[in-house]
């Protein structure tokens, strides 16, 4: 089901087009209500279903495999082995099997679908405040400061808190940033592809119960399928028994290979729970006595029983990301930003993370726009119209020009325009940036671009882009096709593209 993502993409496009500007423009899309739920603009790489109720990682293929394996094996067991066993031995067997199966399924779905304890990213104000504090502490100079850490003493142990550059927060102890989901997760255990989600503070107990019950179920099925085959072979011989219930062979094979890994995993996690460690900490050996004589786990409650109770029966914190809440479009950003780039960078990065599967398209469009830039710089005094894209043969037709309503007012990036205008740059096209060199043609206009077409096409010579230069001057554009221009996103990929594009344009403008 990729509806969630694509739907959110479409909704982004729709809502952004509708909130864009006062100019009437032809848009093929019908106007949607701008009320979006927060999950639709969630910056991490997660998939949401059922209008935000279900949350999973991006790659869910292995999860479906897990589901299929469990369903098929249990299905075969109930269909082929249970009737025989119920008659021969006792009908309690299928009942217990059924209960175990339902429990396994329930805990699996609960683990996969719930929020593992994702920490929401810092608001722009918070990020700016933190940056300021860090700069003050560092005595900032031009060079990039070293990775930021804070030390804190917990129960006598010194713990380093790392700064997360993506989420712009100092991670709480035991939290870690999952690179697959692009989120910081509290009490991060590991990212489990089998359940298609991270395992963290909020779903660790479900994960543990899942693997524990699955071990029991696997052993249960394995044992009773063997019993079934043995009983049958007493009657009619081994080979006949296998012929009569061929499914049993498949079940035995699946269970045999699963038992080792799952039972082993359950044992490992039982150890982790009893010592109140996460997989992450255990692998790194954070609290291992090998590191030092005084190294101990500051989070442990002292005895195994309390640790187990705390992990399995302790209070379950609610989700910190309000998935189903509505986005408040009036969130005030009234204070002048202390660090404009950070502020807008934050919102931009949020936007750019939303649909990163379009990075290819983004970068191509970036190439297009970057191609226009040198022309702007060179011919800023004359009207110019850019008519072709470099990939259309790589050569721009004779008179390439871009209409400019005079030199753009170089709006500083730190301009306190309301951030609702920044999201108006389409969700995955927020990274369509003109490389702003010298800020002579900054296009961080509050005026949203109106380009619906170039999502999946390249600009053809017919699609004459309207002058981006006019936009900051406030004049509305009637043209439906615009050069997409936006904020300078200090993402690293842009500078790479920038360089390659310069080369392209130099070639083409000869």
């Amino acid at each position: 089901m990729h509806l969630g993502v694509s739907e959110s993409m479409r909704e982004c496009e729709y809502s952004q087009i509708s909130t864009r500007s006062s100019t009437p423009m032809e848009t093929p899309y019908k106007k949607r209500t701008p009320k979006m739920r927060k999950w639709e603009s969630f910056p991490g790489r997660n998939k949401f279903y059922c209008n935000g109720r279900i949350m999973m990682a991006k790659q869910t293929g292995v999860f479906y495999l897990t589901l299929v394996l469990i369903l098929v094996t249990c299905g075969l067991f109930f269909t082929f082995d249970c009737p025989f066993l119920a008659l021969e031995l006792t009908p309690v067997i299928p009942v217990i099997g059924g209960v175990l199966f339902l429990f396994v399924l329930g805990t699996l779905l609960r683990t996969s679908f719930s929020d593992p304890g994702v920490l929401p990213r810092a608001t722009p104000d918070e990020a700016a405040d933190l940056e300021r504090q860090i700069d003050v502490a560092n005595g900032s100079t031009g060079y990039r400061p070293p990775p930021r850490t804070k030390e804190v003493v917990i129960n006598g142990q010194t713990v380093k808190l790392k700064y997360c550059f993506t989420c712009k927060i100092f991670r709480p102890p035991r939290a870690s940033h999952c690179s697959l989901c692009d989120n910081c997760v509290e009490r991060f255990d590991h990212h489990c592809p089998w359940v298609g989600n991270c395992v963290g503070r909020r779903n660790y107990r479900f994960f543990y119960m899942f693997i524990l019950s699955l071990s029991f179920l696997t052993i249960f099925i394995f044992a009773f399928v063997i019993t079934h085959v043995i009983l049958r072979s007493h009657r009619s011989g081994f080979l006949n028994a296998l012929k009569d219930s061929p499914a049993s062979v498949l079940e035995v094979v699946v269970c045999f290979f699963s038992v080792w890994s799952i039972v082993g995993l359950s044992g490992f996690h039982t150890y982790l729970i009893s010592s109140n460690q996460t997989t992450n900490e255990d692998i790194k050996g954070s609290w291992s006595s090998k590191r030092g004589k005084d190294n101990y786990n500051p989070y442990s409650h002292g005895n195994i029983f309390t640790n187990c109770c705390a992990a399995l029966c302790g209070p379950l914190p609610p989700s910190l990301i309000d998935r189903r809440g509505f986005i408040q479009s009036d969130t005030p950003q009234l204070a002048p930003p202390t660090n404009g780039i950070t502020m807008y960078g934050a919102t931009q990065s949020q936007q750019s993370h939303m649909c990163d599967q379009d990075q290819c398209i983004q970068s191509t469009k970036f190439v297009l726009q970057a191609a226009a830039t040198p022309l702007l710089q060179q011919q800023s005094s004359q009207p110019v119209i850019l008519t072709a894209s470099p990939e259309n043969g790589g050569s721009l037709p004779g008179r390439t020009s871009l209409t400019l309503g005079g030199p753009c007012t170089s709006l500083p990036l730190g301009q306190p325009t309301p951030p609702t205008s920044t999201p108006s740059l389409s969700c995955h096209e927020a990274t369509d940036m003109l490389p702003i060199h010298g800020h002579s043609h900054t296009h961080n206009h509050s005026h949203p671009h109106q380009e619906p077409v170039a999502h999946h096409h390249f600009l053809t010579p017919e699609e004459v882009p309207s002058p981006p230069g006019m936009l900051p001057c406030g004049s509305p554009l009637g043209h439906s096709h615009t050069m997409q221009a936006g904020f300078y996103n200090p993402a690293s990929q842009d500078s790479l593209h920038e360089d390659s594009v310069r080369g392209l344009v130099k070639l083409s403008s000869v």
Partner: protein
Amino acid sequence: MAETHSLQDMRQQAAVAAKVFIQRDYTKGTVCQFQTKFPSELETRIDKQQFEETVQTLNNLYAEAEKLGSQSYVEGCLACLTAYTIFLCMETHYEKVLKKIAKYIQEQNDKIYAPRGLLLTDPIERGLRVIEVTIFEDRSLTR
């Protein structure tokens, strides 16, 4: 949202001068606690003791939410036995305490902070990372 109409009005009328963020205090581990250190930006606006009392009360409430006691164990076991369907009917202890916290913050805002041109934001709206104190421009106060 912990805002009343009067607070919203104030917000719309007054301009935000600055925002102060009270960070988390991790010295007790992963439990939710906030630093009680009094930020210098608020020195002119509010009494130090008053502010510290607010933060300390919040800390106590959060500690109560995450407390490991017989009540939480019973709730946990019951939930497990009912396959967590029980939470369709009732809310968790943590959620109940969060509601209490929201009420407390609103009450504090109404009584103490709004008259001084300050606004406390419920930490849950900031992912329990910070207590955000918004300082409004105070043109009416003569000092």
